């Protein structure tokens, strides 16, 4: 497939946004049970503003993928059958909850909802945080399923796609949370960095597993099934036109196999190995964490490019020879 930069930025930006929200709310949940010191409203509030900025960036990027962006509202109508439609609903729903979460913290309006028998006070920000957390996971599932549900794009048609979208989004979000904490609440940076290391490691394992899986895939469709002729030697002599068409542009990445071979170790190094090494150093200075997040984000951009480029669409069987 041809990697579209709009979709690459959409998926990496909202992934980091969702991950950052999960990181902030994980911290608040720990703090609620007294496992960590509760931070100021500003910490959670401005953190969620950062979440919203990332999501808004992703949303803007997504519009560049549309031929008729003015009709984008229609894309929420087919949620019964289309994962893309479900994502279109889940993204603004999650943004709305993150906005509410940020608003409650920044305005300090935190009405009590219920007091648990143990004496634990649950206020509205916690309830909203739980809903937003669920929506963050729903959004990860929707984004992943957009690709995983296409059964003949076999590189994507695997539960690993959904798992990896979740883990990679979580990894970049927690790394960003560590950076955010290093700047605003340095005592908490270690907590986020620890989780960032663990999730990055899991994402590395997941992504490596999908690379191994994809390397062993045997194509189901062949030129024989494509044209329905049983003969071991079939060559296309003409695709029917000399100029290009949508079919020759949309489904080929247009780079050399050598480029593809280079980008694979590059993204594994940038998105996973180097951030893990930096996080493992244990020096949670803003500068070091900023480098870790930047490297990881660039690595994830490369990872997403590779994710698209590696998928080989069966329609390409029909477009082999100009003539």
């Amino acid at each position, binding site marked *: 497939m041809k990697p579209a930069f709009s979709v690459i930025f959409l998926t990496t930006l909202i992934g980091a946004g969702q991950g950052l929200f999960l990181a902030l709310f994980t911290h608040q949940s720990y703090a609620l049970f007294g496992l960590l010191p509760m931070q100021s409203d500003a910490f959670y509030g401005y953190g969620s503003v950062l979440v919203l900025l990332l999501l808004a960036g992703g949303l803007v990027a997504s519009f560049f*993928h549309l031929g008729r962006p003015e009709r984008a509202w229609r894309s929420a109508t*087919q949620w019964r059958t289309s994962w893309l439609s479900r994502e279109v609903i889940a993204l603004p729903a999650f943004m709305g909850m993150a906005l509410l979460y940020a608003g409650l913290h920044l305005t300090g309006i935190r009405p009590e909802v219920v007091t648990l028998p143990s004496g634990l006070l649950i206020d509205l920000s916690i309830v909203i945080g739980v809903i937003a957390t669920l929506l963050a996971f729903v959004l990860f599932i929707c984004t992943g399923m957009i690709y995983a549900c296409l059964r003949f794009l076999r590189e994507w048609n695997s539960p690993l796609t959904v798992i990896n979208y979740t883990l990679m989004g979580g990894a970049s979000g927690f790394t960003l949370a560590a950076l955010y904490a290093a700047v605003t609440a340095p005592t908490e940076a270690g907590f986020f960095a620890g989780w960032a290391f663990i999730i990055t490691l899991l994402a590395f394992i997941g992504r490596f597993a999908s690379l191994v899986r994809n390397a062993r895939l045997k194509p*189901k469709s062949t030129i024989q099934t*494509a044209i329905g002729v049983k003969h071991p*030697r079939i060559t296309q002599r003409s695709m*029917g036109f000399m*100029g290009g068409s949508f079919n020759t542009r949309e*489904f080929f990445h247009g780079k050399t196999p050598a480029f593809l071979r280079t980008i694979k170790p590059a993204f594994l190094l940038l998105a996973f190995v180097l951030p893990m090494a930096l996080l493992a150093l244990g020096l949670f200075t803003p500068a070091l964490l900023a480098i870790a997040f930047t490297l990881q984000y660039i690595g994830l951009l490369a990872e997403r490019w590779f994710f698209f480029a590696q998928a080989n669409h069966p329609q390409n069987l029909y477009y082999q020879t100009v003539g």
Partner: protein
Amino acid sequence: MTQLALVIDLNVCVGCHACVTSCKEWNTSGSAGPLYDENPYGADPTGTFFNRVQTYEIGEFPNSETLHFPKSCLHCEDPPCVPVCPTGASYKRKEDGIVLVDYDKCIGCKYCTWACPYGAREIDEKQQVMKKCTLCVDRIYDMTMDEADRKPSCVKACPTSARLFGDIHDPESVVSKAIREDGGYALMPEWGTHPANHYLPRRKTHIKIHQDELERADNPLKVDRQLPKPGKGESSMEDVSAW
């Protein structure tokens, strides 16, 4: 239930591209607007087509065969492009099984093309909406036309009648009979899309002739032994006279 479809006979297709040009001519002139061509007379032309004719070489020279292969939307009975559409612009008509795109609803996200294993859809770079074969839906129901003309444009254009059009759910239709009797098959059956369009394979006609069919055993002259039968290499009356 009706499922309109094309059946393409690869045994007679000569690869003339008449269906391609006829399709383009009809569908670029309709009320839905032109099928956009970019740079049509320039160095690097590109455009939107509903139908293409491709050519394949089967085998290796000298034991090779040329196969011309027309390819358009197959109007799958279980079309994977339809459920993925986020706007409902892509739909399959219940009444005749034609898969269509509502150009007024399409947002040009191209997700349906990812979901079609056949590469049957092409985006219109000018209108920025997805386009595909309509089975000439604006033609086959047009009562102002003669009945003979109420067929897809490609079918009308084919000089060798390689393209048949009809309802594959009607067992007595010409297309159903062709599929049944001449080995009609679907493309990429492995994905379970159940394409409505079928292809008839290349086939050779073999006929077995026995010796008694060449020499009539019941030839009365032979039976009565009235005339001697000349030997195979000997001259006969036919060599010298022409009565």
